[in-house]
C-alpha cells in the first residue's frame, strides 16, 4: 500500500514538473517504487536490471535537458491528465480486475499475494501515461508519458507466467530505446524552438 502511494505521488510530481530534469528524477522515483511493489515476486537480477534501466532512462532525459530550466509548463494539462487518469484507473480496475474470488489481504508494507496492489499501480501508471501523452504539446511530456506507460506495462508483464528474466531484459531495452528516441525528439524540438 505504501509503495502504491509513492507511485501515485511520484507520478503526480512528474506530471506537474515544469522542468525536464525534475520530471526525470520523479520518474526514477516512480520506477523504483514500482519495482518495490513487486517485492519478493521478482528475483534480485530482475530487480537490478529494471532499476538500472530506469536509472539509465532518467539519466538520458536529464542529459537531454542540457540545462536545469528546460521543460514544458503543464498548466491545465496537469489537472486534465490527473482527472482522466483517476477515472480511467477506476474503470480499468472495475472491468479488468481478476474475478477469481480469493480473499484479499492488504498490509501497509509487505507481500501482495493477490496481485491487487500491483494491478492498481499498473492501471494508474498506464492511465497517467496515456493522459500525459495525449495532452502533451511536445516531446518533453510525450517522453515522460511514454516511460510511465511502459513502467505500468512492466508491472503487468511480471504477473504473466513465463521466462521472466528474458522479458525483463527485453522491457529494459525497450525502456532505454523509448528514452533515447524521446531524447532525440527533445533535442530536435529544442533546436526548432531556439530558431
Amino acid at each position: 500500500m505504501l509503495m502504491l502511494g509513492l507511485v501515485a505521488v511520484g507520478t503526480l510530481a512528474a506530471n506537474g514538473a515544469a522542468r525536464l530534469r525534475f520530471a526525470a528524477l520523479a520518474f526514477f522515483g516512480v520506477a523504483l517504487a514500482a519495482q518495490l511493489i513487486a517485492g519478493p515476486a521478482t528475483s534480485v537480477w530482475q530487480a537490478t536490471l529494471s532499476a538500472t534501466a530506469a536509472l539509465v532512462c532518467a539519466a538520458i532525459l536529464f542529459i537531454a535537458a542540457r540545462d536545469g530550466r528546460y521543460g514544458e509548463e503543464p498548466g491545465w494539462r496537469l489537472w486534465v491528465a490527473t482527472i482522466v487518469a483517476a477515472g480511467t484507473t477506476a474503470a480499468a480496475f472495475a472491468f479488468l480486475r481478476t474475478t477469481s474470488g480469493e480473499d484479499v489481504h492488504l498490509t501497509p508494507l509487505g507481500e501482495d499475494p493477490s496481485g491487487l496492489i500491483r494491478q492498481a499501480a499498473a492501471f494508474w501508471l498506464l492511465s497517467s501515461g496515456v493522459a500525459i501523452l495525449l495532452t502533451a504539446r511536445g516531446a518533453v511530456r510525450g517522453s515522460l508519458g511514454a516511460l510511465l506507460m511502459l513502467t505500468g506495462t512492466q508491472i503487468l508483464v511480471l504477473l504473466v507466467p513465463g521466462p521472466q528474466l528474458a522479458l525483463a531484459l527485453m522491457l529494459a531495452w525497450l525502456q532505454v530505446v523509448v528514452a533515447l528516441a524521446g531524447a532525440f525528439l527533445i533535442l530536435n524540438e529544442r533546436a526548432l524552438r531556439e530558431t
Partner: protein
Amino acid sequence: MTAPIVLLGVGALVAFAIRKRVMIAGPFTVAALLAAVVFVASLDVGTTTDFLGLQFRLSPLAQLAAAVLLLSILALVLVVWIDEPAYNFFPTALAAGAAVLAILTLVSPIAIYGALILALLVPVGSFTFQVHRNRSYEAAFRHFSFVVLGGCLGLSALALSGSLPRDQPPATFVLLLAIIVVAFALKLAAIPFHTHAALLAMEVPATALALYFGVLVPATFIAFAEILTLSGLLPAIIQIAKVQDLLLALGALSALGGAFLATGSTELRRVVAYSVIANLGQALIGIATLSGAGIVGAIAITLVTGAGATQQLLAAGALERRSGPDQPSATAAPLAALAFVIGGFAMIGAPPLVAFPGHFFVELIAFSYSGALGTALVLSTLGILIAQLRAAIAIFRVAPDHWRVESRPVAGVVGTLLFLALLLGGMQPDGFLRPIAAFADEFIRALRPL
C-alpha cells in the same frame, strides 16, 4: 537461430560507430544483411533454440518473410549508400532487421510484441530531417506517440489476458481483445488511425518511409497474425462475434478509405502510402474471415504490398530528387519512372505477378462471407487502380525528347529487379504460397484446439 539476430544487432552498434564514413558504413551494412539472409536461408525449417528461457523457431513463414523483408532492407541500404547518403540510416536498417527477425522467430506473444515496439521505434532517428525546413520533427513525434500508445496498451492487454484466470466474464475478454485489435490498428495506420502515416508520407525521407511502409508495416501485420495464433485468444474470437465484426469493420474502412484517399492524392508518396493502407485493409478482412484461404491471401497481400511499396517509394524519392522543385517527371529519371509504374501492378494485385493469388483468395472468400464485403474489396482495388493510373499519367505527362537513363539509376534498377522477382514468383506461386499455407494451418489449428 539467434546468431543472425545477434549479427544484425551487433552490426547496428558497429554501423552507429562508423556511420559518418558512408563509404565504409554502406558496404558494411550490405555485407551484414547479406550474411543474415544467407544464414537464415541455410537453416533447416523447424530449427529451434532457447535464450534465457525464450524460445525461437524458424517456421516456413518466418524463413520466407525474413528473406523478403531483409532483402527489401538491403535494397534500401543500396539506394542510401549509392544515391542518397544519409548516415543515420545504416544503423537504423540493421537494428530494424534484427528486430524484424526476432518478431518472425520468437514464439512467446509478449516477446514478439516487445520486439515489434522496438522495431517501430528504431526509425524515429531517421525520420527527422532538415527540421527547420519541414515538419519531419512533428511527423516523427506523432509516430513515436502512436507506437508507444498502441504498443503499451496492446502489450498490457496481452499480459492481462495471459495472467487472468479463464473464468472471467465474456465482457472482460471482449474488452481485452478490442484493445489488442485497436492497438494493432494504431501501429498499422489503419483508417481512422492513419493521421501519423499521412504526415510521415509527406515529410520524411523516401528511404525511411520505405523502411516503414515496405518492411515494418508488413512485419507488424505478420506479428498480429502470429500473436493471435500463439496467445490462445483465437477460440475467444470465435465465441465472441463482436471482435470479428470489429476486425471486419476496420478492414473494410481501411480498404475503402485508403483507396478513396489514394485516388484523391496528387503526390506520389501519398498514393503509395494510401495504397498500402487500402491493401492492409483487404488483408485485415482476410484474417477476419478466420478461413484458410483468407489467411493465406492476407499474408501474401502483406508481403507483396511491402515489396511493391519499397519499389514505388524508392522510385518516388529518385524522381523527386532529380526533378528538384518541379513536379516529378519521367524526363528527369525515366528508369525510376518506369519502376514506379510497374510497382503499381504489384499494388493492384495484377496477374501474372505473385501479387495476384493473395488478392484473388481474399476477394473470393469475402464474397462468400457477404456480397457487400466482396463488393467493397472490388471497389477498393478499383480505387487503387485509378490512383496508380493517375500517378503514372502525371509522371509521363511530358514526353522526353530522348530517352536517356539517369545517372546512378539505383532506384530504377532495384525496382526492375523487384518486378522481375514478383513476375518469377507469379510463374512459380507454389514456392511463395506453401510456407504461408503452413502458417494458415497453424492458425486454423489454434482456432479450434482439440
